[in-house]
């Protein structure tokens, strides 16, 4: 078949009417800059969903450009369109079945040959294509010189150099993409030619298909289909319901097999790769001398066999310290806002509406105390998300996986499993979804079982309250110890599971380490927001609901005098004896832990509700006039910004969860801390936060596990082992600590 004969299949592609939506599919290698490019085109209009049937993230954006309606689809990053990974199958199915109007192929200009290998496969789909030669700035800085016109005419498509991070070339790219949608036939790339032998065989397959299953030729690009059948592509064979040794194909490739051996797939792949290499030689001039680049210099240190793991641990410690130094002043400010002006405003509103007393109590003791206690930690959570985003975006995350691979082998996993676990430090829910990057179902299940041991952002509020109350002077270290304990226990538990449930060899490890790059401020902000907003949503929905339920459970039977006799208190009393050997056998702790089954930050919210004291009528301070109130909000925020800055500058200054304010003022703000001082010792407080770290995955993780695996089994196992583990570890800490004379 002659190249270009496929135009027949594309014949029904008419140019778009001006009011029709144009679908642009963005395809390219991982790390070629697809997301950055899409963000710079569509900004925050991105919608994140899932690809049907799988939990790979699907990002789409709808917007208008030059008066045209546009739908932008971010395909998963792939190296090829062969069906070896889930990403490849998704990308290919989308392109073949949905037939987008234009493919925007994002190509990493610093790694042209490998990227063009994918481009040449995209070119066989007979879909109009424009090529974004991205990361052009780095390529130029390396002294690369491109012959853009030659590249464009050899591929038969528009080639636009872009620098997505600086938004350079993005306008031209959009113009080219719209032009391609308007004149599709001129924008379908030239397919590569494989030489007479293969072309003849492909022709024969198309001929055979048109005689026996002509429908297939309407559904798929004929030449592409023929080539895939010659490669015995398992997915395509399955979709067509054809056997691997079907006569149509066997007849056509018979003589090829004789001449080149049995592996048709390798033959075609080699031909494509040779073309990609040839193209690259023709259009790219590289300077003769190659400098050792920054990435190699950093890697020589960071991946060093002796320093690798210590550097990783130090990086984590620094991350936690900065998280606190930066967020602390804002958390204080927010706390003061919620318990001050905000609470006063809400109370004023309730009294204006002349609501009954119980409603007033529900609002201020239930909702504001409960949700407020959690909202205070939004700055901490966002700061943490910011640093995790930075680790991801800079390229260090992949190194952490590399460094940890050996340790992970001990538990029957490889380093790649460490990435979902690291993401778990932000939130366990996306971490569970991230396990899909692991090819092997056994790896996936084991990783998902261990993820709840990585301490997520939702547990931070609990730690912060207790650490701030009992360990203010060693805050960062105590906090770090909890995270390290989580990792260490994950390793131990993994070893046990490996022997009990997941017997077998260690899996394969393949991963590309991207070059180190400074993430742009814009992308840091967008991704931090995407990760952090879940907490805001959670605070507004789930935690709000639970706060209200907890308030009712604390105030029922109706009019109960002592919270201890309320429903929640009664259940707390039942659990308390089981927690006594751990050092926190009070009904308050039991009740709070129970409420925390839904989401761990609720532990703090519930404690806030339980311990909150009825203010005496006389004690109530007069609310200051509105203008003063607003001025106060602004100036105190300014102070918070200042001290956050100071905290970062003074790297020597130890993380300050304690603050320099007078004790009095602290107590006024934080009645909870005062109460905790009475109920816990430092030792039992540490046992308590350890228990919170370990005691079970939250309800949202349960749903995520159910979605990802299609069964409750793994959640059940996680739930059971974690309860036992939490109890045992807290017991050892508390009783061991007492034996060592650390006080009871």
């Amino acid at each position: 078949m002659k190249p270009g004969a496929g135009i027949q299949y594309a014949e029904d592609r008419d140019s778009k009417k001006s009011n029709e939506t144009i679908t642009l599919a963005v395809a390219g290698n991982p790390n070629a800059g697809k997301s950055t490019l899409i963000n710079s085109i569509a900004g925050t209009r991105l919608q994140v969903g899932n690809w049907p049937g799988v939990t790979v993230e699907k990002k789409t954006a709808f917007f208008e450009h030059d008066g045209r309606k546009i739908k932008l689809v971010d395909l998963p990053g792939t190296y090829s369109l062969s069906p070896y990974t889930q990403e490849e199958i998704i990308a290919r199915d989308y392109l073949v079945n949905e037939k987008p109007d234009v493919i925007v192929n994002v190509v990493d200009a610093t790694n042209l040959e490998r990227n063009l290998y994918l481009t040449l496969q995209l070119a066989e789909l007979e879909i109009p294509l424009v090529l974004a030669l991205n990361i052009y700035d780095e390529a130029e800085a390396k002294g690369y010189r491109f012959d853009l016109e030659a590249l464009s005419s050899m591929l038969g498509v528009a080639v636009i150099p872009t620098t997505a991070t600086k938004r350079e070339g993005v306008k031209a790219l959009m113009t080219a993409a719209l032009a391609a949608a308007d004149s599709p036939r001129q924008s379908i790339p030239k397919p590569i030619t494989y030489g007479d032998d293969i072309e003849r065989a492909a022709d024969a397959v198309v001929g055979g298909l048109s005689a026996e299953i002509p429908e297939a030729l309407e559904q798929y690009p004929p030449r592409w289909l023929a080539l895939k059948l010659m490669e015995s592509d398992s997915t395509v064979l399955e979709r067509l319901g054809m056997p691997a040794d079907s006569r149509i194909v066997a007849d056509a490739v018979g003589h090829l097999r004789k001449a080149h051996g049995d592996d048709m797939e390798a033959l075609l792949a080699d031909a494509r790769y040779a073309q990609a290499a040839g193209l690259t030689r023709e259009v790219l001039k590289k300077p003769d001398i190659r400098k050792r680049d920054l990435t190699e210099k950093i890697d020589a240190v960071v991946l060093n066999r002796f320093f690798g793991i210590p550097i990783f641990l130090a990086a984590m410690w620094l991350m936690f310290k900065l998280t606190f130094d930066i967020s602390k002043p804002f958390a204080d400010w927010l706390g003061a806002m919620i318990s001050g002006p905000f609470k006063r405003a809400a109370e004023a509103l309730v009294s204006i509406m002349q609501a009954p007393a119980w409603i007033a109590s529900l609002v201020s003791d239930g909702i504001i105390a409960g949700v407020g206690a959690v909202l205070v930690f939004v700055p901490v959570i966002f700061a943490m998300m910011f640093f995790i985003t930075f680790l991801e975006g800079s390229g260090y995350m992949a190194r952490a996986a590399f460094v940890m691979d050996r340790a992970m082998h001990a538990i029957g996993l490889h380093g790649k499993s460490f990435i979902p676990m690291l993401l778990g430090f932000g939130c366990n829910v996306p971490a569970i979804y991230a396990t899909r990057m692991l090819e092997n179902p056994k790896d996936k299940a084991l990783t998902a079982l261990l993820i709840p041991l990585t301490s997520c952002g939702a547990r931070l509020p609990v730690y912060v309250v207790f650490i701030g109350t009992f360990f203010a002077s060693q805050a960062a270290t105590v906090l770090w110890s909890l995270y390290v304990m989580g990792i260490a226990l994950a390793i131990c538990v993994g070893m046990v599971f490996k022997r009990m449930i997941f017997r077998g060899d260690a899996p394969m490890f393949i991963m590309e380490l991207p070059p180190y790059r400074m993430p742009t401020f814009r992308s840091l902000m967008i991704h931090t927001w995407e990760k952090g907003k879940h907490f805001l949503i959670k605070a507004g929905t789930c935690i709000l609901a639970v706060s209200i339920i907890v308030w009712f459970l604390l105030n029922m039977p109706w009019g109960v005098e002592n919270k201890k006799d309320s429903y929640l208190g009664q259940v707390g009393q039942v659990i308390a004896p089981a927690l006594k050997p751990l050092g926190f056998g009070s009904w308050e702790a039991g009740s709070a832990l129970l409420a925390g089954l839904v989401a761990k930050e609720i532990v703090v919210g519930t404690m806030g509700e339980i311990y909150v004291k009825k203010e005496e009528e006389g004690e109530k301070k007069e609310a200051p006039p509105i203008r003063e109130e607003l001025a106060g909000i602004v100036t105190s925020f300014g102070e918070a910004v200042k001290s956050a800055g100071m905290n970062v500058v003074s790297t020597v200054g130890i993380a300050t969860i304690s603050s320099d304010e007078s004790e009095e003022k602290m107590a006024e703000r934080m009645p909870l801390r005062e109460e905790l001082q009475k109920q816990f010792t430092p030792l039992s407080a540490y046992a308590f936060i350890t228990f919170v770290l370990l005691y079970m995955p939250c309800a949202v993780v349960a749903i995520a596990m159910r979605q990802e695996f299609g069964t409750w089994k793994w959640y059940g196992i996680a739930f059971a082992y974690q309860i036992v583990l939490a109890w045992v570890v807290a017991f050892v800490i508390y009783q061991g600590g007492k034996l060592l004379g650390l006080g009871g």
Partner: protein
Amino acid sequence: MSPLAFMAEGEKAEIISLRPRLEGGGKCPDCMEHLKDMGLRPGKQIEMLTNSGGGPLLLKVDESRIALGRGMAMKIYVRRESL
């Protein structure tokens, strides 16, 4: 010819073959094909960046840094320049 895993840090070599999946089989039948898609193909010049005797290896092909497990590195054969 020697397995990739035997290369020293900083050493350069040319890839001769990746053991095809028909034999390698088992846990990850397509891993070798995936590696080829990532640019690790016969005929390519590679440089060993990290090989510390245990744990995974890191090598450079063109402009990519690819980390892979030792087990797989035993199934990839190279022609070392120094031998």
